[in-house]
């Protein structure tokens, strides 16, 4: 990764799928080392924006620059190399069910024809699953699966971590664990975190800035206020009372 300039930039980016405008002239810079929340309702263009960052989609208009390069100018092989410097976690975890936690975490290294058993063990320990290393995903809870997925994303030491609705299928406590881990990831690995979600609470908990998408347009980008909930760890009762207003 380069060391200066934004890690990713959208310059007047539009994406059309046939007659549908998925993104409409979006201009946004993602700064190195920040945690930015991309929020919006379903269909607002969050997934399209994420696909652009993963070089899975290219803009119809405008330009995307990721770490100093325009993915549209890269060959297939160069795009694969770029993706190896970007970590990604998903709503559905997308772990391999027939591989243990340890094997899942080691997989990105295997694809690069290297291995580092010590790093894999260290990361499993970092996400608090050292004792579950040889379990299969089916033997883990949702929160644990997402933590394995985070370890897998970190194993290549990415400068950019894309999180696609990472907590949307998790319960409250697991959500807190995963968010804490994402915040720690920035602190301990210096990764820039792009948190794409419809859950405003998650963004309030860890993000520095929020970018709001509506109907494919970027409506506003603003700093996230430090919420009280951010510093404390609610019990389930406290969380229920806060949400339900008891």
């Amino acid at each position: 990764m380069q060391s200066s300039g934004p890690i990713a930039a959208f310059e007047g980016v539009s994406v059309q799928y046939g007659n549908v405008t998925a993104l409409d002239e979006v201009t946004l810079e993602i700064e190195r080392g920040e945690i930015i929340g991309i929020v919006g309702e379903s269909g607002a263009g969050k997934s399209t924006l994420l696909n652009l960052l993963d070089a899975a989609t290219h803009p119809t208009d405008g330009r995307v620059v990721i770490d100093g390069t325009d993915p549209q100018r890269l060959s297939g092989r160069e795009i694969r190399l770029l993706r190896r410097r970007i970590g990604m976690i998903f709503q559905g975890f997308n772990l391999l069910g027939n591989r243990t936690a340890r094997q899942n975490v080691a997989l990105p290294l295997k694809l690069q024809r290297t291995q580092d058993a010590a790093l894999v063990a260290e990361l499993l320990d970092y996400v608090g699953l050292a004792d579950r290393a040889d379990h299969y995903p089916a033997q883990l809870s949702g929160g644990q699966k997402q933590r394995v997925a985070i370890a897998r994303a970190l194993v290549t030491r990415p400068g950019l971590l894309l999180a696609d609705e990472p907590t949307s299928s998790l319960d409250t406590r697991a959500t807190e664990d995963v968010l804490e881990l994402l915040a720690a990831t920035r602190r301990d690995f210096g990764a820039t975190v792009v948190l794409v979600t419809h859950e405003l609470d998650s963004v309030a908990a860890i993000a520095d800035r929020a970018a709001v998408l509506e109907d494919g347009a970027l409506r506003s980008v603003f700093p996230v206020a430090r919420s009280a909930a951010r510093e404390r760890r609610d019990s389930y009762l406290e969380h229920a009372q806060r949400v339900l207003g008891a």
Partner: protein
Amino acid sequence: MSGFLDSLSANADQIGIAMAETGFMLAFSLAAAVLVGLPLGVVIYLTRPGGPKEHRPIWAVANMYVTVVRSFPFLLFVVFLIPLTRLLYGTTFGTGAATFPLCFVGIALYARLVEQILLEVPSGVLHAARSMGADVFQTVVHFLLVEGRSGLVYALTSASISLISYSTVLGIVGGGGLGDFALRFGYQEYDYPLMYSTIVIVIVCVLLLQTAGEKVSAVLDKR
């Protein structure tokens, strides 16, 4: 009952030979299914319209092969292939030459089953592969085949049972085997006890295969 046992023991040697012939035909056609049918199924999956590596011409040819071979009445297919068999083997007769058409069927059968199993691998697995910068070969080897492995073993079991069934037709080109034995020495010699006991042997073999396939498949499935 004693009639069955008598006819079995009287023909034990020949039944042994017939079993070996069936085993030979099955082994070769299964090897073809794995070595050619598996890659072919992967190619059909990858190149299909809307697939990860869409390529209409390749898909059309591969898919057409599978469809034609699977819909060809097998008896006629064996006859149809006789010129090619003669060209390659120098003969059209005997267990070796008879295995040739069976290999074509094994490839087509297994390719279709492989395609169907890969279609059922969750799309999230492909997303994960893409996000890690996996190339096509890595996506197949480290993701698709890993997640589909129990299904692939189970499908191979089904394919082998179908192949046993297909192999009984190969008596017409001197393929031998249990089916041919039951027909010629049982049915045509009016030795019904021998025919039925041979059929029972076939059924037992199939049951053993099926059970073994289910066991291996279950052990491989950690999902």
